[in-house]
């Protein structure tokens, strides 16, 4: 069982020995922390750099220091490393596998008798409508349980810039392509932005999503000309944006007007570059079908469909007759050299990790690193991520009270943070599927099955290439409109989404909670009845919270919660129940709110919790804990990350 940080503090000397033997983060040369980090500061940092604080992660950050932890995460061996330089330290680490590898494994486990290699060279060559759920399960597993939290979190941020989505068929039935695409993002999360541009441009997934797959040069006979879709969004959304920026992200102006970065003519020219690319192993050039082609390999180039004339993009000329790949690289080089790339991408990464409205100075500092990592290299994303997280505007506690600082948590990240605190684990032993229906002989284990729509958001599933929300979304509020402040994540937090998010939290605290389940059945019995048609199959565990609560209540953790209805009060006038609630709130304040809970908020919550009663001691303890967690997680104190 994990331990609360408060208990941990007392036991620190004993535990240090354990961590000394198994350094978290996977680095072989453990960095000794030179900066002292409080637990609260570590929780706050992890809200910016992971899918949520856990007690283990907090300890890692304290051990390593902020910078040391970032360095260790960047140095950590990944499934994408050329050579494996060392085992990942934590037992049962899943980060030795890529998203694609896990997606394939999960598909093969849930549908054990399905012929996933009908075409021996191509996984899922017929396409399967359940594929997108296997990809999603792999995504949750990596995000919730990966040791490479920073890599996964940055990949997620990149997935909201280089957007693709199951909304574009057949990426749903061929969702192995999304797993592969996410691997591209994760692989380059600390790599070079220019390499990322190249990999994304050639990926089958992006080819399908923005339709340059199968694109052809102008054909007078059929009156067709190249598709402009990818050419446009590559510049508008993925690299330079619509108007010229200063390095600090402020717009450059000419006579008071914005200066467009490109013209329609640039789009037409760039579209010609993006011709001749198609899926490998496709049955004919340009075919777009769930049962043709390999969706996990980069696209291949076909000579006959490429426009070989010279092109002029952003004022630079690409000579005629370059090979398709050279042509593409020449165009990407021109775009990458544009001065907008650094501020345009830096601002959005800051928004995804730290704050919605970064100061122009903050953007400028990060963009400077983007332009030169100190060794004269442009586009070093590892250096950029580190600059974002190490910046005074991200780290200094003085920003917590600044009105324009902070960001709303999006539903996915709020939910993941709570699940990680509650020790989420798979429900093992549910039934897989064959073409005739549920197949009880197919035991599914180790799978994080969550594909319900109630969060109002799912990764790689935005409605359009404009992501779930706009980086420039200004909410309907006079303070924001008059100050020109944005709050991107609030764009999707409509009343129905707020309600269904709250209900998802409630489900996680009750329907999925191990202690509650075991108050009426066994986990094995539950799993025995469960199958893939249940949209969510996972377990949470309130054992730590129950222990903290009971230790403060009656001094033991035997589960009798004996003093919960004792009227006796101590010298402060507090009952045992009130003292237990205090211990619980200390824990939740630290782990969910990074120690930022105000006194008025706390007393409102404390008073209300004291008045919750239930039939048995056991039920009452769980009721109080679940009410407290739901109230905090759905409140602005948690949902606004400061």
């Amino acid at each position, binding site marked *: 069982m994990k331990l609360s940080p408060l208990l941990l503090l007392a036991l620190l000397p004993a535990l240090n020995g354990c961590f000394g033997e198994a350094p978290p983060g996977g680095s072989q040369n453990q960095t000794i922390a030179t900066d002292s980090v409080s637990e609260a500061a570590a929780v706050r940092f992890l809200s910016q750099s992971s899918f949520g604080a856990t007690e283990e992660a907090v300890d890692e950050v304290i051990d390593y220091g902020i910078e040391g932890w970032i360095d260790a995460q960047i140095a950590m061996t990944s499934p994408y490393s050329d050579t494996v330089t060392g085992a990942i330290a934590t037992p049962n680490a899943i980060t030795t596998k890529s998203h694609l590898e896990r997606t394939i494994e999960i598909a093969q486990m849930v549908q054990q008798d399905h012929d996933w290699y009908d075409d021996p060279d191509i996984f899922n060559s017929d396409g399967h409508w359940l594929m997108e759920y296997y990809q999603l399960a792999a995504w949750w597993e990596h995000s919730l349980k990966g040791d490479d939290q920073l890599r996964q979190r940055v990949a997620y941020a990149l997935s909201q810039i280089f957007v693709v989505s199951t*909304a574009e068929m057949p990426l749903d039935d061929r969702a192995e392509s999304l797993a592969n695409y996410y691997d591209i993002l994760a692989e380059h999360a600390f790599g070079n932005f220019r390499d990322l541009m190249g990999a994304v441009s050639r990926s089958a997934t992006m080819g399908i999503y*923005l339709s340059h797959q*199968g*694109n*052809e040069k102008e*054909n007078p006979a*059929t*009156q*067709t*000309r190249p*598709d*402009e*879709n990818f050419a*446009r969004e590559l510049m508008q959304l993925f690299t330079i944006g*619509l108007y010229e920026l200063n390095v600090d992200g402020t717009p450059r102006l000419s006579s008071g007007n*914005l200066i*467009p970065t490109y013209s329609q003519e640039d*789009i037409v020219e760039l579209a010609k570059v993006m011709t001749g690319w198609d899926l490998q192993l496709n049955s004919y050039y340009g075919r777009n079908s769930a049962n043709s082609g390999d969706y996990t390999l980069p696209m291949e180039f076909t000579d006959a469909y490429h426009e070989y004339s010279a092109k002029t993009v952003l004022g630079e000329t690409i000579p005629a007759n370059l090979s398709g790949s050279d042509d593409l690289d020449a165009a990407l080089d021109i775009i990458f050299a544009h001065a907008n790339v650094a501020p345009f991408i830096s601002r959005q990464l800051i928004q995804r990790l730290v704050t919605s409205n970064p100061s122009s100075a903050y953007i400028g500092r990060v963009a400077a690193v983007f332009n030169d990592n100190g060794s004269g290299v442009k586009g070093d994303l590892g250096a950029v991520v580190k600059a974002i997280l190490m910046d005074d505007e991200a780290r200094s506690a003085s920003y917590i*009270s600044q*009105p324009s600082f*902070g960001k709303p948590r999006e539903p996915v990240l709020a939910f993941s943070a709570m699940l990680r605190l509650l020790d989420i684990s798979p429900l093992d032993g549910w039934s897989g599927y064959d073409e005739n229906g549920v197949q009880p002989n197919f035991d599914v284990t180790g799978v994080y099955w969550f594909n319900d729509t109630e969060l109002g958001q799912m990764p790689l599933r935005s*409605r*359009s290439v*404009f992501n779930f929300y706009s980086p420039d*979304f*200004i909410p*309907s*509020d*006079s303070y*924001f*409109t008059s100050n*020109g402040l944005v*709050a991107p994540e*609030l*764009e*999707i*937090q*409509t*009343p*129905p989404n707020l*309600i269904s998010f*709250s*209900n998802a939290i*409630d*489900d996680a605290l009750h329907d999925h909670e191990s202690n509650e389940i075991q108050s009426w059945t066994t986990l094995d019995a539950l799993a025995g009845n469960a199958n893939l048609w249940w949209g969510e199959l996972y377990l949470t565990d309130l054992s730590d919270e129950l222990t903290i609560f009971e230790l403060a209540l009656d001094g033991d953790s035997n589960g009798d919660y004996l003093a919960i209805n004792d009227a006796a009060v101590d010298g402060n006038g507090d009952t045992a129940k009130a003292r237990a609630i205090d211990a619980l709130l200390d824990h939740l304040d630290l782990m969910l709110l990074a120690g930022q809970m*105000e006194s008025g*908020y706390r007393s*409102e*919550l404390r008073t*209300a919790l004291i008045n*919750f009663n239930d039939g048995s001691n056991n039920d009452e303890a769980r009721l109080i804990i679940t*009410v407290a967690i739901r*109230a905090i997680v*759905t*409140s*602005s*104190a948690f*949902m*606004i990350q*400061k």
Partner: protein
Amino acid sequence: MSKMDRRSFLRALLASGMGGIGAPLLNLSNANAATPAFDDYKALVCLYLFGGNDAFNMVVPIGDESGSTAIGQGHQTYGDIRGNLTVAADDLDLATNFAGGLLGSGSGNPYYVDGTQQSAYVKGVYPLGTTGLGFNGVMPELAQLYSDNRLAVINNVGTLVEPTTKANIGSIDRPPFLFAHNHQQRALQTGWADNLSAAGWAGRLADLWGIGRGGVNNNHTLGMNISYAGSNRMLIGDTSTPVNLNAGDILTYAGMEDGSSSEDLQRKALFRGMNGQNAGSDPLRGLYNNMLTGALSMSDLLITEWPNTPDFAGLTGPYGEALFGRPDSTTLGFTANISSSLFYQLESVAKMASLGKRLGLNRQIFVVSMGGFDNHSVQLERHPRLLRQLSLSLWKFQRAIDSLGMGNEVTLFTQSDFGRTMSNNGDGTDHAWGTDNLIVGGCGQQWGLRFAGRYASGWR
């Protein structure tokens, strides 16, 4: 290139649909204007077609090349440019094939060829009188609404900053970021082509009318602007806040619904208490608290009122399906289903309009949407399903509104990012500028309006 000025378009819509507002709308920033005292009910419904609808294949040019239709080019030229996306000019005979507002299933559909939507898409049209134009064959309901004087076509509207002609296009101010989805959406939402940072036009109207501050609609929880399509800038004001809802059943907070359970009441009291805490100096948290409180108030209101809204039982669609039900692909004569999302959104709008009127509201503006119009590829497979869904949706909605006796009070109009290129990129079309939009319901009926503007010309 002749295009109707965007603000004239809005003005026309509002003056008709929102009768009697007149002058203040022309200056939405005039905060001193008196809040009007309405004694009637009117609603506008914006149906937004995300991605840029290819209106060239919705309203198809079918005339000859003589120029008699004022376009100056005809179906021959259209076909030469469109290649495999060309819709044939053949008349699919609406009067016979949609008699009594009923369609046959599968091969009984007038557009049926071989059971694929690709073939249906290009089979033919329903000619619109002598205009030289016709609605795509997969849109019989649209054609019937037009024939019944319930639908008007606004030809070739796009965003403009100032009057623009082919001659002056090089010297005048053009809207920034033409052809970029998000900015053209924004321009339509602000109603202000060169001010993309303004609040939405319907939001500014709500500001001006004192929504949320005791003005029009008597400070009702429902406000004035309601989206069933997620956050939409058109509805967002500087001081007024729209309501965002999901189509279908009303969502409630688990464990807070039961007004007689003390535990539910405790949870709800705690929820309200927490939302009242600590807004203090933090605008993000203050805003979030307001959002949470608003969500609970809305939920409380709708738990009570929604069950009492009309359910349209007994009404049917063109195939005899339940009014807001979805005909399957076999019924449609397609190989793939259409989405039912817009049916549900419009059903909720019809219910909400009825509720708004019953609760004494005077003005409501709704946004609903369809996505998927950005067909750079696979257009032959996808666009017919979108047009079919659009046509059925408008028909179903109008039936529902008429059944409420609100046919003169509710006007629906479409918008889309922009039009698409007349030319073909192989299996789709790319971003362009002007496009055709539709007005359905009260407005068209009252005016007898059929067309405004002129069909795009000068295709190449």
